[in-house]
């Protein structure tokens, strides 16, 4: 039944639409106008994504330090792109990826709600006053030329122009459709007054927004109908309130696939719009008086209901902000309590989600953050498998001493911990990378995606290799076996050095670090292995170690090398420079292996 519901909804919409199209030429015109408008909005959104080249994401990362800045970003981005859904999707992506806080995400959504009211101003102030279809034609022609160019930026600009053209054309179609209806019918005969009118038209506004997936389209319809005298002013105010409510349904549907942070944001959005709507409905009479007062002061004509509706739309969204911003700490506490973070016992993906969208920069940032999450789990496991704790190693000023002092067994069920902390997370990363590799990513992004996926495989390789040496390492460290124990301590110290070096890289400012530092570690690792082998030879010759123990140690040293190299592979993927050109230089200078040849003179 659950699966049938969307099909039933679609079938109902199609039947109603077909009947309307069959019955009325005016309905055909309005429906075509809505279709063009929605198509235009979609193209506008796609165009901004392609044209921005990650600009919105970069701005977002730097503009969300405080609540006013996050709200400012939401207002500005929605005003420019005229798409609150695009801004909301990016906010959810960043929040899910752990790149912004919940407060910043909610600030952006609040700002986007206010930014979306500029659409009503544009429609009422410009869309209905000039021959907007006349402007659509050159935009469509110019946009079509750009859309077929090679550069992604030009193609994006073309989509933006065609999108605006289609939006203009849609507005003109809807306007003409309502003008034609006005000549024959008076839809205001269907007007409802009083509380019933408020509730029914609020519901109509919400339903129309859910069906069309766009509050802009609902606002366009109501402003055009109002301008053509086909809806009463009071009922139009209620539709505007309903349109705000309708957008939250779309967000809730979208958040059903999001992680707990995305769900918190969607619930915050619902609470904000719900309370705003309730307040606007409760205060409709004083709000209307205030709208009239502001409109009179601004010189908006007494009969210019379309512009007065735009004033109302902005005013009640401001009312919502005035009510909710002071309650932000309480709202955050409620959301965090209501939707708890998942239990840490089993690691789940924190940053990669199916609804991350297809912005290359966001995808890669999220995937890198998830790889770091997997690496942290894997590194902790590698340390504990040899009776060491990562936190002790990072704080140590003398690693050999710390290693020698930490000999007691750590109760670690490596298989269970591997399943809980590594396996599922690794599978999620591989699945995510595979699903995103089919996107038309730029070459550099596709290459980075592959590197990060290889990094995740490397973490698994490291844990599996450590598992092989766990038994002997414990045997020879928990009790003193003389020279063999010393050899195993040197192995543990090498592994500890690699783990600490990678932790140090993480703690270093990104501008000061390079993945080339990993190549240094590899060199030190190889030289360290040579020295351990030489020491083993000496011990064997002096008969201070049995041949059986020496063979075991050689096998374990091989596994340790494999684990350390795998850890370094993962680190190389993690700390590759985000700038494509610098990353290329790093790849070029990264040694493939150590040889005795001399460097370039």
């Amino acid at each position: 039944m659950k699966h049938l519901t969307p099909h039933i909804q679609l079938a109902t919409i199609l039947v109603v639409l077909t009947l309307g199209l069959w019955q009325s030429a005016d309905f055909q015109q309005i429906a075509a106008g809505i279709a063009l408008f929605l198509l235009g909005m979609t193209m506008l959104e796609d165009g901004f994504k392609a044209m921005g080249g990650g600009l919105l994401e970069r701005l977002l990362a730097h503009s969300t330090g405080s609540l006013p800045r996050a709200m400012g970003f939401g207002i500005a981005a929605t005003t420019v792109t005229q798409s609150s859904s695009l801004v909301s999707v990016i906010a959810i992506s960043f929040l899910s990826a752990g790149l912004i806080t919940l407060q910043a995400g909610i600030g952006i959504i609040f700002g986007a709600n206010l930014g979306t009211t500029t659409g009503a101003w544009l429609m009422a102030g410009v869309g209905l006053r000039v021959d907007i279809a006349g402007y659509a034609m050159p935009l469509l022609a110019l946009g079509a030329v750009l859309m077929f160019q090679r550069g992604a930026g030009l193609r994006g600009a073309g989509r933006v122009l065609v999108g605006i053209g289609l939006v203009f054309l849609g507005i003109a179609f809807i306007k003409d459709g309502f003008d034609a209806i006005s000549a024959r019918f008076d839809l205001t005969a269907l007007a409802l007054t009083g509380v019933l009118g408020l509730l029914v038209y609020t519901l109509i506004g919400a339903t129309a927004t859910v069906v069309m997936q766009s509050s802009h389209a609902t606002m366009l319809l109501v402003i055009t109908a109002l301008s053509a005298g086909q809806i009463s002013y009071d009922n139009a105010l209620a539709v505007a309130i309903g349109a705000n409510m309708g957008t939250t349904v779309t967000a809730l549907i979208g958040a059903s696939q999001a992680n707990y942070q995305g769900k918190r944001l969607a619930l915050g959005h619902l609470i904000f719009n719900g309370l705003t709507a309730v307040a606007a409905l409760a205060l409709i009479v004083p709000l209307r008086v205030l709208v009239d007062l502001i409109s009179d002061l601004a010189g908006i004509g007494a009969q210019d209901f379309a512009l007065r509706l735009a004033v109302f739309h902005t005013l009640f969204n401001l009312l919502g902000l005035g009510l909710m911003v002071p309650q932000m700490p309480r709202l955050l506490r409620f959301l965090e309590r209501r939707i708890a973070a998942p239990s840490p016992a089993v690691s789940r993906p924190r940053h990669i989600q199916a609804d991350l969208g297809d912005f290359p920069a966001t995808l890669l940032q999220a995937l890198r953050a998830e790889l770091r999450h997997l690496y942290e789990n894997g590194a902790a496991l590698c340390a504990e498998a040899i009776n060491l704790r990562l936190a002790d190693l990072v704080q140590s000023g003398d690693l050999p001493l710390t290693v020698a002092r930490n000999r007691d067994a750590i109760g670690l069920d490596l298989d269970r911990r591997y399943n809980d902390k590594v396996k599922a997370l690794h599978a999620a990363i591989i699945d995510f990378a595979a699903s995103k590799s089919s996107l038309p990513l730029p070459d550099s992004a596709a290459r980075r995606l592959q590197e990060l996926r290889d990094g995740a495989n490397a973490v698994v390789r490291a844990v599996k290799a450590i598992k092989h040496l766990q038994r002997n390492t414990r045997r020879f460290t928990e009790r003193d076996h003389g020279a063999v124990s010393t050899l195993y301590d040197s192995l543990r110290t090498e592994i500890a050095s690699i783990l600490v070096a990678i932790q140090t890289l993480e703690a270093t400012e990104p501008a000061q670090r390079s993945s080339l530092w990993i190549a240094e570690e590899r060199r030190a690792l190889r030289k360290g292995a040579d020295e351990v082998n030489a020491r083993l030879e000496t011990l064997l010759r002096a008969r201070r170690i049995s041949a059986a123990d020496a063979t075991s140690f050689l096998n374990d040293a091989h596994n340790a090398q494999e684990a350390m190299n795998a850890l370094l592979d993962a680190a190389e993927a993690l700390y590759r420079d985000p700038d494509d050109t610098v990353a290329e230089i790093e790849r070029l200078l990264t040694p493939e292996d150590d040889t005795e040849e001399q460097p370039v003179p």
Partner: protein
Amino acid sequence: MAFGKFRDAMDRHLKRLRKGEAHKIKPADLDKMITKLEKRRQDLLAEAQAKPQKAERITHKQAALDEMLANARSLRARLEPAADDPDSGA
């Protein structure tokens, strides 16, 4: 890195560049990397003095760093004419 390996890496980079899969390296990009490597060298020297017990390990790291630095400088020298000639260089 040994010269032969570095030359192979360069060949692969040039191939990717011709296919449009790699970014063109400008002298300024390389200058920044050389500065970073030199700073790293200073840091390693300071660390070797501060932690004598790690001196041996740091010596190996310095050796790898010196090779990367030499290769970076060599690449920078090759790119020198590219400042005036947009068609040359890596």
